[in-house]
């Protein structure tokens, strides 16, 4: 197994609060990796460290051998890590297609002169971009809505659009922040199928944070459990489920 994402001894303090303490984990190529833990366990902080919104107090994060620590968010995107947001963040007044095209902005080259002169290169880039965006929308299952404004999509479709937009930047690692939040059981099952099919079709790694433990157990190859900022377990779902620390910290108290 070759490692894609390597989180090495990451600690993070906010004033006197120890949000993360010496957390290490790795995500392999083509792996679906889950991150669970009770509220306040540090999942979101770890996610923010990986995606560049928070700089860790110590430790570092590398993606495919490149250090991500201290990089700006859009540079991290360029290195091959795209994310979705817990509270959906789309461009509400742009069409579904345009939202996906914006996701691929950083891969484009056309500048202002290309845009005005409409030279051959600019036109071809635009046409390719359009095709790719259509394909992505097809892959996530909302291709019948391309011209709809993003704000008019249903909640579930907005989540799918966010995933399509993240995929548009050709990431090696797709990070999903509570993708099933606010969904009904049918939608959750459909979303899980989608994530599994994306991994199969695009050969990417996917990192997921989610509260729904059952749902995660059926989705992920491996799961890490955080509790009070520390990693208390890291294993395949069956073994995580039986891990005494996990039961004590999380599953036991939850049920």
């Amino acid at each position, binding site marked *: 197994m070759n490692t894609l994402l390597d989180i090495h001894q990451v600690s993070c303090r906010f004033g006197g609060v120890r949000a993360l303490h010496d957390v290490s984990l790795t995500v392999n190529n083509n792996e679906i990796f889950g991150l669970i833990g009770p509220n306040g366990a540090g999942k979101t902080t770890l996610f923010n460290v990986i995606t560049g919104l928070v700089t860790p107090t110590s430790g570092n994060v590398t993606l495919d051998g490149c250090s991500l620590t201290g990089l700006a*968010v*859009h540079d991290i*995107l*360029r290195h091959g890590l795209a994310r979705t947001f817990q509270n959906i*963040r789309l*461009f*509400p*007044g*742009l069409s579904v297609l*345009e939202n996906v*095209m*914006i*996701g691929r*902005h*950083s891969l*484009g080259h*056309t*500048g*202002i002169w*290309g*845009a*005005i002169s*409409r030279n051959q290169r*600019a036109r071809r*880039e*635009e046409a390719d*971009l359009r095709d790719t965006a259509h394909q992505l929308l097809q892959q996530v299952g909302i291709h019948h809505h391309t011209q709809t404004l993003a*704000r008019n999509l249903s909640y579930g479709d907005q989540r799918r659009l966010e995933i399509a*937009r993240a995929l548009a*930047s050709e990431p090696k690692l797709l990070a999903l922040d509570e993708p099933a939040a606010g969904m009904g059981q049918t939608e959750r099952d459909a979303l899980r199928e989608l994530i599994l099919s994306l991994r199969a079709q695009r050969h990417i790694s996917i990192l997921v944070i989610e509260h729904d433990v059952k749902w995660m157990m059926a989705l992920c190859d491996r799961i890490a459990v955080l509790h009070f900022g520390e990693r208390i377990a890291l294993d395949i779902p069956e073994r995580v489920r039986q891990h005494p620390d996990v039961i004590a910290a999380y599953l036991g108290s939850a049920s």
Partner: protein
Amino acid sequence: MSILLQQLVNGLVLGSVYALVALGYTMVYGILGLINFAHGDVTMIGAMVALTSITALSGHLPWPAAVALGLIAAIAVCMVLGYFIERLAYRPLRHAPRLAPLITAIGVSIILQNLAMLIWGRQYLAFPALLPQTWFDIDGARITGIQLAILGIALTLMLILDFLVRHTRLGRAMRATAQSPQLAGLMGINANQIISVTFLIGSALAAVAGLMVSAYYGLAHYYMGFLLGLKAFSAAVLGGIGQLRGAILGGLLLGVIESLGAGYIGVLTHGLLGSNYQDVFAFFVLIIVLMVRPSGLLGKPATDRA
């Protein structure tokens, strides 16, 4: 009939100039939420530079070459000016309360007016009489060659801009930045660059409008940017500020209303009010429209701007 047609043509010509300037206001407002009150004065600088260069070149070059070079000079000066106004006056205040950049904009406007007064003086400058006086008579109305050129060039520029914003990578990035600068930043869009480009485009359009207005009236003056800017700003508000097509519609409408008002107000009031009330007419219509539709003709309710 011929008066109506004549006033409609005059109004459309005037309105297309308003629209070009209004586009500058609306683009900047769309992205920064800032009313760039110095924009009218950028137009004035464009008019001054164009007029001065055309006057200087008119003896040495045939008139089309002189006008073209004057236009290029005006565009270049205005773009540089617009770029530095944003960099020096507005960017440092990007995260300040909204009132601060607004006051700064008024300050920049005053600085530009006084600068122009120092360079070009207080007197009205006359546009050199070198454009050929051609016209066409249609049903008793007279359309001059200058009017046709203004309409044609202005409409072409508006079409290009509309296409640029709706269908290109740059335009998409501009619209995304207008909706959410932070999120656009996360997508790898450099908001500062987009803002600079917005000022560059707006200033170039202002330069063209400046040349047009000084050629049309045959005059330029250091204070001309004030009323022109105010009207163009009103046009942008009338159409729905932040909306490109709104600025175009608002500009054309304001021009037509103003000219119809000037043409008919004497008849309507039995000579009590003359055509010198044309400015009042335009603002009167603006007030009425805003009472009925506060977000402007094409504007969306404020809640839509997330």
